[in-house]
Every structure is written in C-alpha cells, then in structure tokens.
C-alpha cells in the first residue's frame, strides 16, 4: 500500500532530518525548534515521495537500476505515484475538491462569526487563523484545479498527445500537494498563523510554529506550480499531433500556455520571498524586519508573484469559458486570433501591475501613476475576451446545458469583478477602499465568480470524458440556479460594508454594520448548501450514472474523438490535424482525421 509506505518513509525522513538539525543546533547553540521542523520536513517530503512510488518509478533509475512505471491497474493506481496524465488529473481534481470543501466549511465558520459584531464563535486568534487558512486553501484550489487537474487530463488529449512532455515530473508536481495539505491542517494545532495568506513580515516572522508550517506549505505548493508550468509549456511546444499548428490550437490550450508562462516564471519570486522569511526565522538572517531589513521589500516580491498569480487562475478560466461557449453555440470562436493576442498581452501586463496592491503601503508616490495606468490598460485585452464570448453567442444555436450555464455565469460574474477592479486600480478610490470589504467582494467576484464558476463549467463539461458516465442534467441545473443566485446575493451584499467603512480581516466590527453582515452571512450559508446537489450528483453519477458516449456534446476537439474514458495512451488511432478546431457550420473544415493505429508512427510535433 504505497500511501502507508509513504507515511512511514515520511516519518523516518522526519526523524533523520530532525536528528541532523539537532546535531547542528547543538553545535551552534541556536534555538533548536524551528530548524528541526524545517529540516525534518524536507527529509519527510523526500521520504513521502519515495514511499508513494517515486523510488520505484524514477529513483532506481538514478542508480542504474530498472524502473517500474506501470501506469495501468485498477482503482489503486490513483493511490500511488503514477505517470499517466489522466490519473494525475483525477488525483488533482479529487484532492482539490476535498480542499475546496474544507475551505468552504471554514468560510461558513467565518460567516457565523461575522453574523454579529461581537466575538462569539472564535477567539480572536483562531478567527485570524481560520481566515488565513480559508485564503491559502482557496488560492490553492483556484491555482491548481484547472491548471493541475482539468488541463492535465484534457490538454494532452486536445493536442493529440500520448502524455505530457515529462510524465514523471508531472507525477512529482502532484505528489508534493498532500504534504501541503497536511501542513496546513496541522498548522492550527501549532498555534496557527494570523498573517493572512499574504504573510507580510515582520508579523509573519513572529508567528507561532503554525506560521512556519504555513510558510513551508506555501513554498512547497510553489514548487508544484513551477514544475507544472514548465511541463505544460514543454508539452504544448513539443507534443502536438502532426498538423496541430499554432493557429489550430483550441483556445483552452492557449490559455493554459499563457498561464503556464506566468506559473513558471512568477512563482519563483514568491518562493524566494518565503524562503527568505524562513531564513529569517531559522538562521536569524535579516531581510525584511527592521532594523536592518525592509518590510516593504517583501510586499513587492510577494505581489510580483501574487498579482500574476490571479492570471494563472483566470486565464484558464477564460479558456474553458470560451471553449465551452463555442461548442455549445455550435459556432466558431469569434475573433480567435484576437483572443490569443489578448492572452499574450495579459501575460505581459500581468508582470508590470503588482504595485497597485501597494498604493497605501508607503512606497514612493512616483510609482502610483504608472501602476495605475498599466493596471487600467488590462481592461483592453480583457474586453477582447468579452467580445469573443458575446460575438460567439451572437446568432448562435445555443444548447443550454449545464456547462454553458456556468460559462455564462463566468461572463456575468466577471463583468462585476472586472468593473469593480477599476475602482481599485484608481489611486484615489483605492486609498479609501483598500483593505475594506469592497476588496473582499471584488476578488471573490473575479476568483470565485470567474475561476470557481469556470471550474464547475469545466467539471460538468469534461465529466463524461473523465468518468465515462453522464451527470444528471436536472440536478446540475438546480445546482447552477442555487449557486448563481446565492453567490450573487452574498457577494453583491458584501460590497456594502466595504463602502461604509468596514475593514477586512476582522472578527469584530462596529455594531452599525451588523444588519448588512447578517444578510451576507445568511446568503453565504445558503451558498454553502447549494453545493449539496452537486456533491450528490457527482458521486451518484460517477458510480451509477448512465454510460457516456464518446462525444456526448458532438464537439469537434480531439479529446472527444477518443473513447470515454480514453485508453492508456489516449488514442487507438493516431490523429492527424487537418483544420482549425471550431469548424461548426463550415463543411470545408475538418479538425482531424484518424489514420494509422497509434504507435506505428513516431509522435512528431511540427
């Protein structure tokens, strides 16, 4: 049982690392506790990875021994180091659904606390830890569910590949996620951390051990993102089927490529920032804490990643949204080339807008103007995405299935998210609104209304391909209706406390703001309950749903041209791409034909 072996090896690794650390701190006379945890954790992760199957599938190779990749098997293949991108995709999705539900329960607890102005559910510190955990867990869900989960499963299929470029690195990217979750869940037992997911020093260098666990978790998650981004870039460049030219890539693939570039390059910055915080803690080095350090430096480093990170979340959401809108409109994607250009522009701009998070930080005033202008310019490429969505819908033959409903939900919600973003890009209004509930409502409109709705759109859309079974359409509609309405009540109402003077990240607030918070809380509990039909639908349909045909949506892209679920190396017959992927209503365009059986021809990109 690889999971048990992984846990045992992790424990052994921890003891070894802790032992080495104790030896060193004994010599240097430093405080032993935190170095012990860090070094123990590093060895524990290595032990964990080797135990869950990395040694068998990869490690033996380093010592000239034969490896056993064995990607096939029954359900137990999901519970070990497995190099099949489809298995890894399902591992990501199911793990992150669990994280999503846990973080959702934390949100319910927060809304219970905030339903009235006093202190009732939590102590002050536990509220802050709860809020911080909710934040980082949802960030992980938003970053990795589409990128690690759905694109892992469908992207190689969409480009006609047998797998990703580096299947073993792909498995590694997933298997460092469980340590992240374990650390985050352990953190409250070790004093928690009351810094928010942003972890600004000096506060974050002074938290209990729980804070150190969070910083290690975030750093580990960053490594997973960096490796994942690199893998997708390499896959899209090298693994495309013959004839899959750049102009024939489905838009979802473009969006993943764009997000992967950010994921590979920007994530390294936050990794350095967190590493420096950890070094401050365990080596008493001085980077961010005065005297000697500069607290603002971290904020720049952090947002140099964390602003682009929102595009790691939203670009694949746009990709999935447009993909679904085109297929369910039975119409080619409107202004395809302009959307690709818009994605490229968003990637470029995403790197030069970070300091709009710092208008009230005390950074030089000369930076305000440029960062305001650059931030507002992002509305132009984002507008192109809306043009494409609306242009595709115009004069379409809309099939109003659940995936399309969620995709339209993304368009609706992101309109609010994008427009309220202007208020925060403008320096004057941002100085009033920064760190209030207006910001909280805004980013829930972009991240939840955009990315999480897109996750559900993608989830319903690819469910038949992933599981080989159909979901229940009626339950899906009920889920959409409840979630869409209650989501909008919750977060529209949340703008109000922000504009009347309620700051974020507080357990207590002036009683004047009580009634509006009560409305938000009640709607939020309803929103929480709206996921029940979804959970039931997914579980029940996966087990008992009716068998899905290969192409239930009658869609053109390659993932629908193989069986549901696809065979081990994806295609029984090898695809040769002959036209663009959105040839609806155009008989001169065929996306692909299938010729020789797979494996008789070498897989070649162009």
């Amino acid at each position, binding site marked *: 049982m690889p999971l048990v072996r992984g846990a045992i090896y992790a424990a052994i690794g921890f003891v070894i690392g802790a032992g080495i650390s104790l030896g060193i701190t004994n010599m240097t006379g430093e405080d032993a506790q935190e170095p012990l945890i860090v070094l123990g954790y590093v060895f524990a992760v290595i032990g964990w990875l080797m135990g869950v199957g990395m040694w068998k599938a990869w490690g033996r190779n380093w010592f000239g021994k034969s490896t056993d990749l064995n990607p096939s098997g029954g359900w137990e293949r999901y519970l070990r180091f497995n190099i099949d991108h489809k298995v890894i995709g399902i591992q990501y999705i199911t793990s992150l659904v669990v994280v999503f539900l846990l973080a959702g329960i934390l949100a319910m607890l927060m809304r219970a606390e905030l339903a009235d102005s006093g202190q009732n559910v939590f102590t002050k510190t536990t509220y802050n830890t709860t809020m911080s955990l909710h934040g980082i867990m949802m960030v992980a869900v938003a970053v990795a569910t589409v990128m690690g989960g759905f694109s892992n499963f469908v992207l190689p299929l969409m480009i006609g590949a047998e797998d990703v470029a580096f299947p073993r690195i792909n498995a590694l990217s997933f298997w460092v996620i469980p340590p992240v979750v374990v650390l985050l869940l352990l953190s409250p037992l070790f004093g928690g951390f009351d810094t928010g997911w942003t972890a600004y020093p*000096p506060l974050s260098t002074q938290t209990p051990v729980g804070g150190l666990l969070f910083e290690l978790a975030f750093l580990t998650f960053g490594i997973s993102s960096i490796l994942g981004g690199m893998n997708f870039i390499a896959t899209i460049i090298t693994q495309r089927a013959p004839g899959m030219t750049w102009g024939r890539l489905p838009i979802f693939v473009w969006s993943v490529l764009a997000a992967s570039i950010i994921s590979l390059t920007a994530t390294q910055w936050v990794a350095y920032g967190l590493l420096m915080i950890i070094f401050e803690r365990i080596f008493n080095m001085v980077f961010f804490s005065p005297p000697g*350090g500069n607290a603002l430096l971290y904020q720049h480093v952090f947002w140099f990643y964390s602003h682009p990170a929102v595009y790691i979340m939203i670009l694949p959401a746009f990709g999935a949204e447009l993909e679904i809108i085109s297929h369910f409109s039975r119409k080619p994607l409107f202004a*395809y080339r302009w959307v690709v250009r818009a994605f490229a522009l968003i990637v470029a701009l995403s790197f030069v807008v970070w300091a709009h998070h710092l208008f009230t930080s005390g950074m030089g005033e000369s930076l305000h103007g440029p960062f305001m202008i650059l931030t507002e310019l992002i509305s132009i490429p984002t*507008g192109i995405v809306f043009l494409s969505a609306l242009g595709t819908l115009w004069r379409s033959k809309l099939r*109003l299935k659940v995936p399309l409903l969620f995709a339209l939900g993304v368009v609706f919600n992101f309109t609010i998210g994008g427009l309220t973003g202007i208020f925060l890009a403008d320096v*004057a209004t941002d100085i*009033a609104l920064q760190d209030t509930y207006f910001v909280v409502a805004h980013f829930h409109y972009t991240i939840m209304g955009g990315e999480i709705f897109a996750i559900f759109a993608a989830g319903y859309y690819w469910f038949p391909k992933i599981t080989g079974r159909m979901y229940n359409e009626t339950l899906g509609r009920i889920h959409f209706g409840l979630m869409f309405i209650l989501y909008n009540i919750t977060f529209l109402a949340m703008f109000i406390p922000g504009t009347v003077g309620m700051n974020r990240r507080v357990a207590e607030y002036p009683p004047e703001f009580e009634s509006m918070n009560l409305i938000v809380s009640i709607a939020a509990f309803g929103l929480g309950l709206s996921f029940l039909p979804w959970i039931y639908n997914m579980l029940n349909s996966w087990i008992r749903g009716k068998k899905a045909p290969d192409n239930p949506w009658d869609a053109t892209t390659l993932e629908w041209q193989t069986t549901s679920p696809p065979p081990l190396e994806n295609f029984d017959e090898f695809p040769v791409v002959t036209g663009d992927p959105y040839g609806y209503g155009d008989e001169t365009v065929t996306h692909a034909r299938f010729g020789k059986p797979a494996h008789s021809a070498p897989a070649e990109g162009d």
Partner: protein
Amino acid sequence: MFGDAATTQGEFIDEAFTLLMVMAIPIFTFVVTMIGYVVFKFRAKSGDLEDAAPIRTHTNWVGFWFAWTTILCLVVIVHPGYTGLIELRQTKADEPDLTVNVTGRRWQWIYEYDGRGVSLFSKDEMLILPNDSLIRFNVTSEDQDVVHSFWIPAFRMKIDAVPGLMTYYDVITTETGHFNDDVNFRVQCAELCGRDHSLMFTRIEVVEPAEFEQWIADKAG
C-alpha cells in the same frame, strides 16, 4: 460612497467613486442584456442539431470594440486617475495648520501633536482634531513592531505604518463630527497586525478650530 466625507480629499474620492459607478452601470447593463437576449433569442429548439452560420470574426466590430474600450480606459486614466493624483498631492508643499505624529504599536495608536506639547498614549483617549484645517499625519510603527495601516474612514484616507519607514498623508477637514454620531470618525488599523487587529482603533472628534485651541491649551497646561 455612503456617509459624508469630512475632508476635501474625501469629497474628491466620493465623487470619483460615483463617476466610476455611473460609467460601470451601463457597461454591466449592456453585458447582462446581451446574455439575456442571446439566451432568449438564439436558443436551439430541442431536436435542432444544425450548426450556426460560421462567423469567425468581423473586422469592424473588433475595431469598434477596441476603440470604445480604449477610449473609456483613457478617460478613466485622465479623470479620476490623473486628476486624483494631483488632488492628493496638492498640499504637499504647504505648511500644515497641525501636524500629528502617529506611531503604531500592537494594538493601539500613539499620537503626538507636533510642537504643541501634547501626546495621547491611552487607547481610551479621543483624538481631537480641528475643522477647516490642513492636517498632516506623519505615520510610522515602532521598530520591533509590525505593519499597521492608519485609516480614518470619514476622511477616506489611509497609509501604512511601517516599522523603519516614515509615511504621511494630508487632509483638509471640512466637517465637524464625533465618533458617537458617526462610527467612521475613528482611526482604524487596516492592515492585519495579529490578535487585536480589529480592536486597534481610536475614536475621533473633529471640532471648530477655536474649540480645538482651547482643548489643546488645557491639555498642555
């Protein structure tokens, strides 16, 4: 924004907020109308398996879309963007009527009325400020402390209190007011600073200048 702004800067910010709202609502309405219309109008009848006509792009529409998004973007950059920067900076070179040195310390604020021999150390004391005055707040945080943010909701202004760094903002007060009448007459820490972050606030009263002079003379004496 809701509630009265009590400074000229705050009035500008409220007008900017209203203007952005006026611009945002038609765009939102347009998108929602479009979604509603296409769902109503272009929904495929059940059993209709035909594809739609393959319209791939439309040069004029793309150009038009580019034009209006760019124009709107430029408008917002100029006003309230650029004009806002000028508004917030306009008092930079002026000599303030009152300077208050503010220091953040977990979890309270310490105030020193610059050159007036008055400091407020207790969390329970009210911060008294004069109306119709240019007030400069010099803000920092103690060396071993953490980042706070000095926010006065009624003034609409905030700036972080960073250890090792001196920040400031100016306001010109335009209204008298008291915390008991308007909860936004308070200094509230707006940057998460640990356990008692939510309670790190000071009540404010803005009084007429004569009354202020009386108060500070009594206090100094």
